[in-house]
């Protein structure tokens, strides 16, 4: 009550600016982060957002050769999807892609974890040698890796056939790996495994180094065999790493367009050798059927997002802590 009396002139004037100042600052503080996000959001909308929306729309249209030459594209609802559902070739490609992806991811995981356990078990020098070798493989650009592997699997002068042929009882002279789909995809799988194992090994090894030596010693004292220690202690403790790595492998092994395209360059471009990526590419470039290609693309995006969801949920939780 006395305060206004002691300073009557000030009490009237200051409140408005004092009120305005924080609100202005707050408004600027609120606008700040959005301004910082603007360029990133902008480029994502142009490079990813618009194409996704265009694809959703086009997948509901008839968009074939005539539309490539300017005919308006009529909306046909879910006809593209319905056509896909009854297309045997499409289902073949989907099944092959899933099988390829799962087999490759599982083998990658098993080999990768085995090598991580090996790194953990050996002395420093052999560990370093193994790590350098894996890093070299990991760092190879995919196109360069493909040319080397195609040369290694070359029918007549490839090192693989030569070495296998040298084993008594095996006749691999001039064996054409890229001729039949089963060996074609086996080669593709070997190459993808070769390239992806290093990531699995290093991630798992990082997880292994977190396990305290005391726990392992205690288990050994209690008479646990080394296999029991692996199964009972090591594997459960590195399970979170393995779960994430496995999920990433599955997602990555669905996108093997580069590898399949280059193997088809060296072998055959026939439809039997297609996985989802090359299937979409051929629908778009050869048949010029963008409506159908968009429908398949939407399915691929949907599968990827569904699979990624667990990974993303984990990361978001991590972000909040």
């Amino acid at each position, binding site marked *: 009550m006395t305060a206004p009396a002691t300073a009557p002139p000030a009490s009237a004037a200051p409140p408005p600016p004092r009120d305005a100042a924080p609100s202005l600052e707050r408004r600027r503080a609120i606008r700040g982060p959005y301004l910082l996000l603007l360029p990133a959001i902008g480029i994502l909308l142009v490079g990813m957002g618009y194409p996704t929306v265009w694809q959703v729309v086009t997948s509901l249209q008839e968009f074939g050769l005539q539309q490539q030459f300017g005919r308006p594209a009529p909306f046909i609802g879910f006809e593209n999807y319905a056509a896909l559902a009854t297309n045997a070739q499409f289902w073949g490609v989907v099944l092959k892609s899933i099988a390829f992806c799962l087999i490759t991811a599982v083998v990658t995981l098993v080999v990768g974890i085995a090598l991580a356990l090996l790194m953990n078990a050996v002395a420093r020098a052999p560990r370093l040698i193994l790590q350098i070798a894996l890093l070299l493989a990991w760092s190879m650009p995919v*196109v360069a890796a493909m040319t080397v592997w195609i040369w290694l699997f070359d029918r007549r002068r490839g090192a693989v056939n030569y070495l296998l042929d040298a084993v008594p009882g095996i006749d691999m002279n001039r064996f054409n790996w890229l001729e039949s789909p089963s060996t074609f995809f086996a080669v593709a799988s070997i190459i993808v495994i070769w390239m992806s194992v290093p990531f699995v090994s290093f991630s798992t090894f990082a997880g292994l180094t977190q396990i305290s030596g005391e726990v392992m010693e205690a288990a050994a004292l209690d008479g646990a065999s080394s296999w029991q220690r692996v199964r009972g202690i090591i594997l459960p403790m590195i399970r979170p790493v393995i779960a994430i790595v496995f999920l990433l492998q599955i997602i990555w092994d669905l996108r093997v367009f580069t590898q399949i395209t280059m193997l088809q360059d060296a072998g055959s471009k026939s439809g039997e050798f297609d996985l989802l990526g090359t299937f979409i590419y051929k629908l778009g470039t050869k048949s010029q059927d963008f409506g159908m290609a968009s429908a398949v693309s939407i399915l691929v995006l949907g599968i990827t997002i569904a699979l990624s969801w667990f990974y993303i949920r984990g990361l978001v939780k991590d972000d909040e802590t």
Partner: protein
Amino acid sequence: MTNRTARRLLGGLAVAVAIVWAFPIYWMVNSSLLPNTTLQSFVPTFVPFGGSLGNFREALADGSFYAALGMSVSITLIAVFFCILFAFLAAVAISRFRFRGRKSFVIAVLIVQMLPAEGLFIAQYKMVSSAGLLDSVIGVSIIYVAAVVPFTVWMLRGFVAGIPVDLEEAAMVDGLSRFGAFMRITFPLLAPGLVASGVYAFLQAWNEFTVALVLLPSEAAQTLPLWLRGFVQASATRETDWGQVMAASTLVAVPVIVFFLIVQGRLTSGLVSGAVKG
């Protein structure tokens, strides 16, 4: 079997695995140094005694390597610069501010990071071609920035969050503005993070094949991966000169291997962070 011999045996196994794993890379360099007459033999030559650089000269002879190198360098430089700039701003926003829509942005970034190029390239082709940007540096660069920004944001977010805000606040108490405090205190501490994400963006743009294949249909506008693929494609019509192909592969791979070895520690920790900690 004593513990020590078991350890030795495992050591031997580790070295054997290492040899198998590094063999393809050794084979690339080995074949690149051997003359074609040696490679024509049905018995492979395992050590390049008396090798020469003739294959490299041949691979470089028609000048297409330099054109592709120029294309790759321009696209990569543009992509890395804008990617780092945009990602840096966004990383500051999500790690220094709490605001509405922050979580949605983080989720969107993580989802986009997962999307395969195969799922979008038809639409990207359509978009870039109707903008008249096929076979141009700009068209590919736009897609590359959009594809690489998400993971770079995520990577930089970790780096920015790792620098305590207290440092900035202390500098502000000492009279610097908020922007000044950020530029003079946080930014220098962030340099290693910027370099690591820059190398990551470099690797992505430099090695990318799928989008480049779709958006650069003309032979005159090839990037290095497309140039290298050309050698394998040519094998459909004539006998492949593997010495030359391996020389070309070596040329493409060596700078990447060097850069990769610099950045790899940061990469793994970014991808599985959280899982290892918990």
